[in-house]
Structure formats: C-alpha cells, structure tokens
C-alpha cells in the first residue's frame, strides 16, 4: 500500500505492507537507522520520533495510520550544513552519551520537551524521560545536558 510522509522536511513515497510499523519504514525502507529498536513493544523509548511535533514510540505506530504526517528523526536534528543542535552538543559535552543506543530516542523526547517548555525543572525533565530507558548513564549527565541548553536559551 502507498504511504506518503514528510521525513525531516523531505517528502517520501513508500510502498508498505499493511502491518508495517513506522519504525520498520524508517529503518528498513528509508534506511534512517539512527532511530533504534530496543524492544519493539513500546517499553524502552529508543525508537522515539516526532510525529507532527509529538514524541511517540515509532515501534507502536502502524505506518499507514500516520499517512501524510510530518516525521522528525534524529537525523533531522543536525542542520543541513552539519551543525549540531544545542541539545546534541550538550549531550556530548555534559557526558550524556555512553553507549549511545538510547540517545536518539532521548534527543527526540527532549527536543519536544524544550519546544514546549524552554526552561524545564529537573523534575520536569525526569518526568519527560520516564519512558526512555538509559541503562548506562544513571541519567544525571543527561539531565545536566538539558539544563545547560535551557540556561543558554534563557541567556539569549
């Protein structure tokens, strides 16, 4: 079946099987492998992408159900010239990345959070990422990364 999506600003026309998930489409059809699969059951948050601006688990969405939607993935966070977003930079400098498998999902969840709430408290950050498991970092440096972006924004 035919599916039309706007993915990171570019239109994509894809033939998909009826049961294909958005995650399958992104990883297998569009070869955007930055979005990760940790469980395929909506439990780990590694597959988080933005659908019309909202953070969702791509593994739970039947692709056809989001026909026509605007999708943002980790690959779209970097500008065309290759400049990292402030949040991506902050993840690197604050040490919020270890194995990095949770990172794309966290970046998407937090990008959505910062758009809605440019200066979240630490508790609001914790709450926002309660659906994103990170097994490596113990979260502290991720929370710091978000805090440092919020401070930069406010300083502007």
């Amino acid at each position, binding site marked *: 079946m035919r599916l039309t999506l706007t993915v990171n600003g570019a239109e994509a026309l894809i033939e998909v099987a009826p049961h294909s998930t958005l995650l399958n489409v992104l990883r297998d059809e569009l070869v955007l*492998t930055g979005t990760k699969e940790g*469980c395929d059951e909506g439990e780990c948050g590694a597959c988080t992408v933005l659908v019309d601006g909202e953070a969702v688990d791509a593994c739970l969405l039947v692709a056809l159900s989001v026909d026509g939607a605007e999708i943002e993935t980790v690959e779209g*966070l970097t500008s065309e010239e290759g400049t990292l977003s402030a949040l991506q930079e902050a993840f*690197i400098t604050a040490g919020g990345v270890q194995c990095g498998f949770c990172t794309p999902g966290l970046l998407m969840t937090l990008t959505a959070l910062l758009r809605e709430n440019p200066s979240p408290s630490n508790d609001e950050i914790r709450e926002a990422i309660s659906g994103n498991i*990170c097994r490596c970092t*113990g979260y*502290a440096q991720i929370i710091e990364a978000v805090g440092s972006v919020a401070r930069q924004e406010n300083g502007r």
Partner: protein
Amino acid sequence: MTTSLVGASVPRTDGEAKVTGRAVYGVDYSEVGMLHARLLRSSVAAGRIAKLDTTHAIGMPGVHGVFTSADAPTCRAGWVIKEQHLFAHDVLRYEGEPIAGVVADTREQATAACAALEIEIEPIAPVADITSALDEGARLVHPEWEAYEPAGPADHPRRDNIACEVISDPDPDALLQAFAEAHTVVEDTYVAPRQYQAYLEPKSAVASFREGRYTVHTAHQFPFNVRDRVAQCLDVRPSSVRVLGHHIGGGFGGKLDTALEPYAALFAKLTGRPVKLVNDREEDILTCPSRENAIVRIRTALAQDGTVLARELECLMDHGAYSGEMPWLASVPMHVLGQVYRTGAARVTTTLVYTNTAPTGAFRGVGGTYLYFALEQHMDSCARALEMDRRAFRLHNLIAGGDQSLTGQTLDDAGLLREAFERMEEAAPWAEGPAESETNGALRGRGIAALTWMTNPMPGSATLKLNEDGTLGLITAATDNGTGAVTMGITQIAADALGLQPDDVVLLMPDTDAAGYDAGSQGSRTTHIVGRATATAANEVRDKVLELAARLLEADIADLELTEGHVVVTGASDRRIPLAQVAATATFSSGPIIGSGSYATQAPSFNPGCATGLLFPVFPTPTYHVHLAEVEVDPVTGRVTVTRYVVVQEVGRAINPAGVRGQIQGGVAQGLGYALYESLESDDGRYRERTLETYRLPLACDIPEVEIVLMEHPDAEGPHGAKGVAEPPIIPVAAAVATAVADAIGRPITRLPIRPDDVLAALAE
C-alpha cells in the same frame, strides 16, 4: 605550552556519531544479498524432542534453508567446559535453548517459517532451582557430565549437578576452636536474585563465508572470544574466523561470550549468502547469561571486644543449564570474604549448581554484588549482637596495608580502605545520621559499605601509525562498550603523548585480523591494560618522531617537545616543524612511523595450596571504595526512596574525570536497580519477566545524583597511574542500601531486591 590531556574531561570521540544517529551498531549493519534467520527455541525448561518435522517450513515463501543438529558439527563447545552443541540433540535443558534455525529472504518470512516448524516436545519435570538440584536423588541435568572435556589444559572439581566446587579450609582445628571459644556466634543466610544486563541493544550478528573463511560482524565486548568460540563450534582453527566489531549498545558482561555469532556463521556457510540474526527482546531476556541467583550463608565467631575470630562462608550459585565463564567466578567468594574485613580463621565453600534454567554468567561486578550485600548485612548483624556502633565495628576489623587476602595475596595498599572511610566521614559525618525527612512519617536510615575490587589483568595491545597528514591511526581490538575507555581514555593517552587532540586519533573498529589479541571490555581492564600498551606504542612513535625532527630542526632531542601538532624546540617557538611534515618525510625516506605495545598484568603471588578448584586465584591491581546510602521508607506503602548516595572511590589516576563520574553514576544506578527492583523470577525454570516492562529497570525519577569523592593513588604499572574504574561502582550499592533500609525499619534485610511487600512484611514481624 598546551595543558595535558590526561586528567582533562574532554568529550568522547564517538559522541558526534552517536548524537547524529550515524554510528553503526551491530543491529544496523547489513550487507548486499543478506538473508535473515530466526531460531526455533525450546519452549520448556526441560524436555525431550519427540518429533521435529521441517518439511512444511522448507516450502514456505522466501525460505532458503531449515537447519537442525543434523546440519551442525558434532563437536561440543564451551568457554571453560565443552558441553554444548549448537542445536539441542534430543534433550532440552532450558527454555530458549536453540533447536533449529530458518533462513529466509526477510525476517518476517523467517519468523513465519519458524512458527511453521512442526515440533512435539515431551516435557520433563525440570530441576528448577538450586535447592532441588542438590536434593538426594535429584535428576541430573547432565547425566553424561563425566564425558565433558575442559576447554583449557586443567579440569576443576565437579560432579553430578555440581558444575564446580571451590573449597578452602586451611586450618579446620583453628576454626573449630575459635567458634568454641567465641563470646558470640552470629549466623545469617541471604538470598539474591538473578539480574538481567538489559543493555539497550539486543544481541545480533551478521556473518558470511567466503574463500574458506568466516567473517562475523557483531557488537561485542570481546571479539577474540567470538573468534575462538565460533571456531570451536564450527570445528575450524581460530584464524579461519575474522570478527569485526561495531558500536555496542551496552554490554555489562552480557556480551562477553558468543550468542548468535556461531549460528549466523553456520547459516552463511550452508546457504552461501551473508546471514543476519537479531534477538527480539524476549529471546534476549530468556537466553542472556544473567547474573546468577545465589544463596549465601555466613557464620562469625566474635570476641567480646568486637574482634572477628573466625568466619565461615557458604555460597551456592545457580549455574543454569550450561557453563559459560561461571567456573572462574566460583573463586569470587574467597576474595570477597578476606579483602575488606579481617576474618581470623576462615572456611569458604562455593558450589555452582546446574539447573534447568538459562546459563548464568558475568554481569558487572559478578558475584561481588550479593557477596558484599551479604557480608555488610552480616557485619551489621554482628555489630547489633555486640551492641557496637556499626561503623566502629567495621573499622575495628578493617584490613590494613600489607595484610593478606584468603588466597595469600598481599594487599600492600589496603590502608587506602581506612583512608576511604575517613574521606567518607568528611563528606557525610557518621554521627549526624540521615538528613531530616521532608516526608511526614517516613522512616529514615543510613548504611555504609566498603569494597576492595580488582582490575582485570588479561592481555591487550595497541598499534599506532603516524599518518602522513600528522594524524594517528589507532589499531586495537579493545572495545568501547559505552564506558569511554577507548574513545576517551586510550585516545587521550595516545594524543597526549604526541601533542595531538583526541580528534586527531583515527580509531579502527575492532578487527581480529588486524589487531593483536585483546581480552575484551571486562573487569575495568581497558584503560589500565590497553592504555598502558598504547602508552608504550605512543612512546615508540614519539621517539622516532623526535629523532627525525632533531635532524630536520638541527636541534638536540632533549630540547624538543611535541605540542599542537608540531615538534617545537623548547624556548624557541619559531623553530618548529609540523608533525605532518615529519611523518611524510619519514614515510618517503625510511618508511612509515609505527609503534606498538602489548601488556598484561603480572599475577601477584598467592598461596596455591589455599583452596581446591580455584581458577581465578588473585585480584590484581586492587582498588578501594566506601559507599554510603541514605534512604526513606514509607511505612504505609513499603516504598524505599534513596535520598542521598555518596561514593568514595580510589582510581589510581582519573584520565578523564567526567568519564569516571559517568561510570560511577551509571554503576550506582544499576546497583540501585539490583537493590530495589530487578529480579528474574522463575516458575518451574521459566522466567516470569519477559519484557522490559515486567523486568523493572531504574528510570530517571528513581536515581539520585550521586556525590563522588575520588582518591588518586597512582599505580606504578598503570598508564599515568590509572587503575580500573568502571566495574566497581555497582558492587557495594545493594550492601549500602540494604543496611540503610535495615537501619530505617529496625529489621534485617536478608533478600534482594528490597520490594515494598518485603518491607511491609518485615515491618509487620
């Protein structure tokens, strides 16, 4: 003059690849013409295959082959004991054990064909747990155990359902006498759960077979072990297998032995096409070599003044159905018992017990997690019996510099334990007790726990080649499973020696054809061992650079320094030459500049007569630690909240303090999961938790910000003095939290994890 990179919190060099989604993990790797496989796994804990009919599955759309034990080599394989066939022959010994494999054009087709395999299994009553496995007349998990051969030169004591036994009882008379004359004898039994590594990237492998050799792509902690085990399983020599590493989405010990790699390799050979295999999360949970569940009994003879006169420890570890590296881990209880507190006369017995459950294995900190939990809870129990202060009782029995461990290893720096207690006292004075609660009615408690742990001594190597553009190629099979040991530690050591920046170091991902042997990311060894090898390699490159540069600059070698990508005459900054120019000149005159280094820690001496069955007799390059936890317990719900957590850790030298902090914060988080939430429970040998929802992992709201005090006592052998860092922070967490909860509720904690129901039950007693 630039400042040193060593000791600087510079970012990891793979950070950008990881935040942009460009990093290729094992699951992301694919090849042209690649097929997809799935495994049919046992649905029972114990049984017999009555019928397996592949006819229908073979005819399914897209299927290239269906393979069973008839298609695999007949040899048995295993890390320590050769017990395992690739596919079950007739008998099934744990849920998840591979029975057959299907290869098809797509994963969906392989999954469908796998479901279409016609199988009949006659279930057998499983040997479900440690206790029933040891019952008299218990069914043997391996009736043919005597026929199994050790993989290495020496065997170890084993019999029936006992996969390995370590016994140390050097002076039975002294022990008896101490217990007979003791003022007080205290005995406790502790129970610890099975813990799943729960790395976020499930296991996978892509293999091909060309020109008589296997190539295996995998995101693995220990590529050379994959090479060796694939070779063993497929009955070829190790050099017939090439293993290539990719970014690893976490490992924590769960990716030290092979899982899917030998199957992918076999299928690649049988189909003539590259084959990819990926675990779904349920398969991953069912078959991962999780931290073993265990039962620990400790008994102590005490003098009236609080001196420990004698101590006995018995540890029963659940081995699961087959041996991974577990027989080595049977040595851990002996180390733990004698390396923090003095024991007086001691007896230690460790028994690894076969059950019809998934084979257990290494998880960061291995058995240390529950052994220290047991030891520290028991220390509290002894202090209570003597009505002594818990901290004072610990200090009274603390080992000192020059004391010997129970294996006869001299711990020269053990005085650092007392120093760690003092540093903790500055951070969190004991007499102050836990901070006032902000929650009405909450019970508050505080716990303290100490730790001595090792740095894994196994060998590693590095080769550095100076490229003509002045960058440095780094070739090593050391793996960065997320810790930053390679992309921070080793990279910084290499760059620092040559006056370069971390981004000037071009890292080759592990390739067993290109790099020398490396023992994998385990036991905090990478920065210490491979960092040292890298320092040696870098010095060789540096010497060659300086020799040539001295000629080019007409200067004395002693007057040269390497900084900002240049060789500079000290004090005459206009007399400088780019490193690139030196490299290019060398390359096209005498040949490229290359340096190499190899290293393994020389084993400290020990007493070989101290025990039988001890495969892992020393704890080299030890580090010393004290942890403190403060908790609040809600007496109505039984919920435990960790309100404060402090770590004092001795690291030798912190090459990258931010990286060290990440390891401590992350290790403590995993330890809190183990202490409070995580447990693979089984019903009749079958796990109850099969998803990341039912297997409760720590989330952002569960983990406090850890306060960290680093102690630096440089090691004479380590690079810039560095010792192991990443493994230990998980180990004393359950010990510290459990003693804090026990303090809060006034009842001992004897079982992990400490769940609300258990707290309420204890409070009701």
